[in-house]
């Protein structure tokens, strides 16, 4: 068991961490915005709109994430779109994330009681004014805890995009293993890194929850 191998390769691993955080950050950013939009469109939309969005969610949640990564990776070049590995990784993560994100947004908007709508209409607001001033502020605060959970889930799921060639932490680790034929020490290090990242995000999420709960209780 030779742990010196970590000292030789730690820069490569740190570059991998950088890519992992980069990919996760952009997927979370774009994914959250899109899910909030889609959630609002779903709640306010007509039947056909609801059917289309439900179909999208059904497909994305019924297929393995690895399959979606392969579809983006192999099918897009056929359609003429050439993306870099990192861009297609971010795209697949975002597509997968938006499915669960839209469910969360839909749930929290529908959890706001109907009385709020009635009060807003009684004050003379239109549907969209009621949404903007009354419903959404409440919904947005209640959707933060589930979203934080999903963010941590996405950070761990981002390791799968390494299979499509994204040089993230898992991908770099695999490269090192294939080059040096020593799996155990590198993998242990990678595991510790993922563990620390995940625990840090979870802890940050819990603190954010506490602060928001304080705000809500006013």
């Amino acid at each position, binding site marked *: *068991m030779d742990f010196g191998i970590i000292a030789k390769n730690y820069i490569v691993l740190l570059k991998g961490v950088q890519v992992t955080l980069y990919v996760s950050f952009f997927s979370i950013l774009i994914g959250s915005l899109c899910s909030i939009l889609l959630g609002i469109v779903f709640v306010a939309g007509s039947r056909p709109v609801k059917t289309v969005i439900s179909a999208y969610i059904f*497909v994305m*949640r*019924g*297929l*393995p*994430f*690895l*399959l979606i990564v*392969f*579809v983006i990776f*192999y*099918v897009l070049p*056929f359609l003429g779109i050439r993306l870099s590995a990192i861009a297609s990784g971010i795209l697949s993560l975002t597509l997968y994330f938006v499915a669960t994100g839209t469910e969360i947004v839909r749930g929290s908007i529908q959890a706001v009681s109907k009385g709020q709508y009635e009060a807003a209409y009684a004050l003379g607001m239109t549907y969209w004014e009621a949404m903007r001033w009354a419903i959404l502020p409440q919904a947005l605060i209640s959707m933060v805890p589930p979203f934080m959970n999903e963010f941590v889930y996405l950070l*761990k*799921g981002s*390791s*799968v995009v*390494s*299979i499509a060639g994204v040089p993230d932490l*898992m991908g770099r*680790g*695999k490269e090192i*293993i294939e080059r040096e034929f*020593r*799996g*155990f*020490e590198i*993998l*242990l290090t*990678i*595991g510790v890194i*993922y*563990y620390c990242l*995940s*625990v840090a995000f*979870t802890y940050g999420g819990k603190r954010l929850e506490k602060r928001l709960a304080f705000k809500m209780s006013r």
Partner: protein
Amino acid sequence: MIFNYRLIVETIPLFLIGLYYTCLISLVCIVTGFITAVFISGAMEAKNKWVLFLGNVYLSINRNTPGLFKLYFIYFGAPALGFFPSPLLSGIIAITLHNSGYMIEILRGGYLSIPRTQYETAIAFGMGHWKAIRLVLFPQVFRNALPAIGNYWIDIIKQSSLASTVTVTEILYYAKSLTSEYMRPIEFLGIAGILYLSLTLLLSLAIRKWEASFRYPR
């Protein structure tokens, strides 16, 4: 884009082998993951300091590390410890470990929702800890927890696709290698997608029927 039906018909046998392995991995992981989760959460109910500590360590490690990482760790890293798992065995162990963490959380939440007096009464009747769990607590916990645990069973079907990266010959393995060979991603990834959607749909319908059987007739 013309679908090459002849090619699809020729490769059906491969997809049937893949379907067999996917179902095999999913079923074994559902059963072993659930049994492990039941035992560990039952043991943690005893409120023994050491059991709780070990259980929390197990939970923490399994919930904060990616599934793909666990797979690589067992397949590439375990040989350094003298244990040489086959691809199939590493897939099964990794997916079981990964999901048992989440299932334990759900079961513990279920145990929390049952008043402690039930357990204390059972012990007062002379039942041992495990008898109390088996006869009194667990039936109630299972009925409450089934929807949430069912979600993770469906997740297991999707995670079995990860095993294809360590050369387990399941659906996605054949889909990927056939795509690389014939450069026809739409046909092969499409078949894989349809197969996975059918499996997840079937399982979720079965779980919903099981949930319905717990409800009292009105």
